[in-house]
């Protein structure tokens, strides 16, 4: 499925400065795999060594924090916007 991935400032070195890049995949896991194929190294910034979303990264599909949905198995329908955001904020 064709999606849009919003890239946080600290990862834009991987995307040549782009704040948004096209994504592809039926689930978040697939979208992130394709993202890493397109921009090598970016996946390891978002996922830890065991393949889980790093604990200081929040990922949203649309408005939904994927931890309230199905995590990496969250569906990413065509047209959905995926946002990767540093969790260290607030309070």
């Amino acid at each position, binding site marked *: 499925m064709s999606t849009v991935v919003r890239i946080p400032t600290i990862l834009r070195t991987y995307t040549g400065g782009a704040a948004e890049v096209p994504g592809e995949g039926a689930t978040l896991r697939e979208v992130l795999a394709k993202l890493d194929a397109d921009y090598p190294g970016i996946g390891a910034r978002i996922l830890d060594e065991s393949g889980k979303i790093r604990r*200081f990264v929040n990922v949203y599909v649309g408005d939904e924090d994927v931890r309230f949905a199905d995590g990496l198995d969250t569906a990413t329908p065509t047209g959905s916007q995926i946002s990767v955001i540093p969790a260290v904020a607030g309070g």
Partner: protein
Amino acid sequence: MALANPAVQPAAAVAPFGSAVGLSCRECGQTYDLGPSYACLECFGPLEVSYDFGGVSREAIEAGPANIWRYRDLLPVPADVADKPNLAPGWTRLVRARNLGKELGLRSLHVKDDSGNPTHSFKDRVVAIALEAARTFGYTTLSCSSTGNLAGAVTAAAARAGLRACVFIPADLEQAKIVMASVYGGDLVGIEGSYDEVNRFCSELIGDPLGEGWGFVNVNLRTYYAEGSKTLAYEIAEQLGWRLPDQIVIPVASGSQLTKIDKGFRELIKLGLVEEKPYRIFAAQAAGCAPVSSAYKAGHEVVQPVRPDTIAKSLAIGNPADGPYVLDIVRRTGGAVEDVTDAEVVDAMRLLARTEGIFAETAGGVTVGVLRKLTEAGVLDPDAETVVLNTGDGLKTLDAVAEFARPTAVIRPSVDAFRAAFDDRG
């Protein structure tokens, strides 16, 4: 090797960050130069300010001003910070709470009452540090995501400093917090959503050209901002006569304050300003937003986010950034995390007001409620020196107690009417 940070302004005559020497990632240890960075480029972990403290004496601190700048040598601020336009917060009272202690069965209880700050919450401490960093980085707009207290602290600090303010809050906040945040000028924007959604919005705004030149005190300035909470630890120790309490109960929203109070205590020990001794840190949450308490009770090391539903709106952060560190610290020091229901929060607010003449906001009801719960459960040592934090003013959360706080009687201005009303009461 420290990674360079190109956004730092050229060095000023006075070191802009005092004895601070760099930033380091709390997760992976990667080091960075002092700059407007808040998340590690390697792992997204939070960055911490590290210092190279010279000799700091009790006497030098005691000779300083009656505000947080007496601790300027322990903070990432310039030596002349007290001369700059800021709200000069802190040095709030540490109240010996004999009545409350007696009622709960605690021999030596103190309330650190931070409602006495310029905008009536502890947030003035953290904003004061963030403001100095904003000046150094050349930011012209001061901003934040806020559960209420922070918005007022930011707009007030910006007014004093001559900066523009634009702050973001959940649109459904208490009226008093909305008034407090808007009266100082600047822009106050209500977001239709929860605090966590406001936070997410601000994190995205930082990466947008619209947010260019903005210092979000609790996002891109959070590394510096958070250090302000260390001053609570310093003040408590100094006010106890330069010693650490045996046990302390601290509210948890993002968890930042608790982690920095622990950091402050450890620094005081390291600097020889207090005697080294064990202390236990207890964390307090509202049952309607208790992700850290739930993780603690389940024995987890990670915190599963929740959707908040509590009257303690200043603590209503469902996705607490420092939650894992709160768990680490509580477990390391032999403390605990506990939560109380909204009814217990209100009851505790009334208890504190009735026994000590301190009108706390709902967050203070949470800490006092947890203090009571942990005492009754035998978790807190009744003979130990105990401190409980009140971080805000009850005048900002009047609705919580309005149902119970009404005139005893409304009468005509006559003694007979008074007699009749009070005779009826028996």
